[in-house]
C-alpha cells in the first residue's frame, strides 16, 4: 500500500509518517520510507541516530529523467534501476525499513538541483 502524509509545516505529519512506518514494518513486513520534505527529519522519527541520519546520501533529482512519451507527452523515467537506487541511496532504519531522502541539506551547495 502506498501511503502519503501531508500537512502544514509543524502539523506533526513526519512523526506520524515515521511511527506508521515502524508499525507497518512489525512482523518483518517490508517498508520503504520516502522523505520528500525539503527539511528532512523522517530519519529521526524512524529511530535512526543523528549521526546515521547525517550520513544519508540525498537522492539527486537527476535520478529521474524527462523523456518523450510520444504525442507531445513527456514522462519521467528512472535513469538507474530500482535495485541500484535502493542499494546506493537507501539507509537502513530500525525495523528493517529502507529510507530514501529526496530533500537537500539546507547548507548544501552541491551543484544545481
Amino acid at each position, binding site marked *: 500500500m502506498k501511503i502519503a502524509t501531508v500537512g502544514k509545516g509543524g502539523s506533526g505529519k513526519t512523526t506520524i509518517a515515521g511511527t*506508521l512506518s515502524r508499525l507497518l514494518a512489525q512482523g518483518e513486513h517490508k517498508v520503504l520510507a520516502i522523505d520528500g520534505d525539503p527539511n528532512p527529519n523522517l530519519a529521526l522519527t524512524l*529511530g535512526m541516530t543523528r549521526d546515521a541520519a547525517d550520513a544519508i546520501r540525498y537522492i539527486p533529482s537527476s535520478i*529521474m529523467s524527462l523523456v518523450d512519451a510520444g504525442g507531445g507527452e513527456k514522462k519521467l523515467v528512472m535513469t538507474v534501476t530500482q535495485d541500484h537506487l*535502493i542499494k546506493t541511496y537507501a539507509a537502513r532504519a530500525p525495523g528493517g525499513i529502507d529510507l530514501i531522502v529526496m530533500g537537500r541539506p539546507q547548507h548544501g551547495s552541491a551543484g544545481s538541483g
Partner: protein
Amino acid sequence: MCASHRAVRGLIAELSGYGEHTVTDMEAGLEHMKRGTARNVDVMLIVAEPYYRSLEAAERTYSLARELAIPHIFVVANKIKTNADQKAVDEFCARHGMPIIGTVPHDDELVEADRRALAPIDHAPDCTSVRAIVAIADKLRALPSPGGRQQAGLAARPQT
C-alpha cells in the same frame, strides 16, 4: 525546486512495487499536489491540527486529493488537547464530508522524544500518541488492497 518535485513524483511511481508498503512524507503545503506528486498514492493522510487555518488547509488538500482520484483520503486529527479541540475537528470534517481515520492527542512524550532525538516508538511505545497511531495503522491494514499493485509477501517487483 521544480526538478526536485518532478523527481519525487516520478520516484513514488517507480518505487511503488518495492516492498509491501511505501510511506512518503510529503513536503508541507499544496505545491506537490498541484504538481501531481501525490497522484501515485493509495492512501493520503492529511494531518490537521485543531485550529481553523490548519483545518482550512486540510480541506483544500482534501479537495485536490479528490480531484486526483486518490482511492483513500483521511484526516488525522493531531495534537488534540481538549474535548473542544476534538469537537472543532469533528464538526469541521463532518461539514466538509472528510472522514477522520484517527485522533492523536497532544503528548508531552513526543516533545521529550524529539529532545532526546529518539523515535517516539522507541522512547515511549505505550504513550497515548503512539497508541493512537497504532490504531490508525490497524485501520490502514484493514483497507481493501489497492488493485494488487503491491502484494503482501512480495519483497520487490522484478525489474522488467
